[in-house]
């Protein structure tokens, strides 16, 4: 794809990711709102503008790969895949119901267009290392994008993978870090230190960018700066984001990692999302 989609279109798709997340969560009775809202703009820019994909041919060998290592944000990815034509959007009405293809954490054997299963945090970057190695071995120039949550950086396997990618010079491997600041039990720096995350990646031989993960223009610019070629330093983009972004009651709140909106709350949140992103007010944060 790698098409020139306008910013308003990408904004609209980010809104779509959020509203679909709210809709699907109501079907399930529980869902990961805030972890998905924090990466809505990143997903929008990646899938609607950046990635080289052919939804009509999901097994195309030269396609770019995407691994949703923070698998609990799959609820925001399914609507994108459906919207792009990988499967009929009406299938999402079965979300999490008995026998559905679409669960809280994604299964590549069930979801058309999904490049790998995820859910157990800390694994996704190793999957990406393997995909990037396979590209090198088979002489293909696709990129492999891996979206990491910031909390999962505490998993040791992440750093095994970071180290190996630097050593193996997997220049076509890209970390998209959703640095939303919160994990389940609190602020990441209180639960387990992550910063200085740029220095940490750089010390393993990675190139690192850091941009506002809700600024679509900045996200696209960061993508443009990714180098061509399949060898060289692997690429990390640290996206500073706000957990729960787009719904005031959820922004930087510890109460909405998993939740369920009902009744008027559901309607109010949908109305709020339809109005588009409002300026973030940190006074509401915990």
């Amino acid at each position, binding site marked *: 794809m790698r098409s020139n989609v306008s910013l308003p279109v990408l904004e609209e798709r980010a809104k779509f990711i959020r509203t679909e997340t709210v809709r699907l969560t109501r079907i399930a009775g529980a869902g990961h709102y805030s972890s998905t809202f924090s990466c809505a703009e990143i997903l929008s820019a990646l899938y609607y503008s950046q990635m080289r994909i052919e939804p009509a041919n999901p097994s195309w*060998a030269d396609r770019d*790969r995407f*691994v949703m290592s923070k698998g609990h944000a799959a609820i925001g990815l399914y609507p994108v895949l459906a919207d792009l034509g990988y499967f009929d959007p009406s299938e999402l009405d079965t979300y999490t119901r008995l026998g559905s293809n679409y669960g809280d954490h994604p*299964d*590549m*054997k069930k979801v058309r267009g999904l*490049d*790998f*299963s995820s*859910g*157990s945090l800390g*694994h996704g970057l*190793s*999957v*990406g*290392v*393997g*995909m*990037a*190695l*396979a*590209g090198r*071995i*088979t002489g293909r120039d696709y990129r492999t994008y891996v979206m990491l949550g910031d909390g999962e950086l505490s998993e*040791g*396997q992440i750093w*095994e*993978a970071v*180290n*190996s990618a630097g*050593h*193996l010079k997997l220049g076509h491997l890209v970390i998209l870090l959703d640095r939303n600041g919160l994990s389940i039990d609190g602020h990441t720096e209180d639960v387990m230190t992550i910063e200085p995350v740029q220095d940490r990646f750089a010390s393993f031989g990675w190139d690192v960018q850091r941009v506002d993960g809700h600024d679509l223009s900045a996200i696209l610019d960061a993508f443009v700066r990714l180098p061509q070629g399949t060898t060289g330093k692997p690429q990390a983009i640290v996206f500073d984001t706000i957990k729960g972004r787009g719904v005031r009651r959820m922004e930087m709140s510890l109460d909405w990692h998993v939740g369920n909106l009902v009744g008027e709350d559901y309607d109010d949140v949908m109305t709020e999302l339809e109005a588009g992103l409002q300026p973030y007010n940190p006074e509401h944060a915990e």
Partner: protein
Amino acid sequence: MSTEMQNEAEIFRGTTDGKTTFRDARSVRGTPKKGLPAFVLGEELAEMARSDPRIVVATADLASANRTNDFRDVHPDRFVNFGIAEKNMITAAAGMASCGLIPYVATFASFCAILGAEQIRTDCAYPRMPVRVIGTHSGMSMGFYGSSHHALEDLGMLRVMADLTVICATDANHLRAVLRKSVDHPGAMYIRLGRGRDPVVYDSVPDLKIGRAIRLQEGLDLTLIATGSVVRATLDAAATLEAEDGLSVRVVDMHTISPLDRAEIQAAAEDTGRILTIEEHNITGGLGSAVAEVLVDLPRVPFRRHGVPDRYVEIGPPAALYAQYRLDAPGIAEVAREFCSAFTQRS
């Protein structure tokens, strides 16, 4: 340095005197390694990879010990050494497999099957990726290196995972057959090896079917069902029982632990009655437990499991440990005699 010490040192690249290299140690000892399972691993994979570009090999800083360096020397572009990072290796193999490759990843069984169990389940078995995890130096074959380096629980841990084929290689020729059959076998596999000096059972590469046991000899009074490293000793024990006790002993190589060959177990129950399982594994959860799960659904026959008791074993050289736990030929014969005495032959 005694021969035994030299042998033990060979497990790693270095040796106990800190000077002799791995290859030097081989030449000093002068014993040809060809034909022993771990030592045909890299050679066989390299040969297979000549005609199959999908085959890739990885290890975790044990290329010398498991001889995947024989693959590296032939196909350096399809070999990855991940360093001492087994979880990353197994999951990355799954990522490679998702792109159409067939990765064989090898390290000590304790560090792939036990340390990497979750990666095997979640990244290989669950998405049905054709990753072949090869656990070398399984059981207590690492001897005095201690329980950290033993894998006496791997079969129990892995055979309960759905969509994971679990196979024990019996000897060099059997390993060749397993590897050749593995290429296009659907889904993930765990292939369990000894330490590379397992004695010969098969004079040539057997006609192997994954999931189908191999009946090594017929018998009417007793069936010995063994797997992997103890099959040779079981055959020798059977010969002793036939010569000294006049027993007619059936011997089955149950190389595939999952999926298990239920028909062969049922046939043993019907044909010979008494069944004794033998394995280099904790008595809980391994081959014996798997066979018991089949037998419990059948008309009752005398049955006993023989393996390592549910504890961490003493320090000692492998041969001493096998004798201690009666997993050498005399020990197996002794256990079989006790079993037969307790359950006298039906008329």
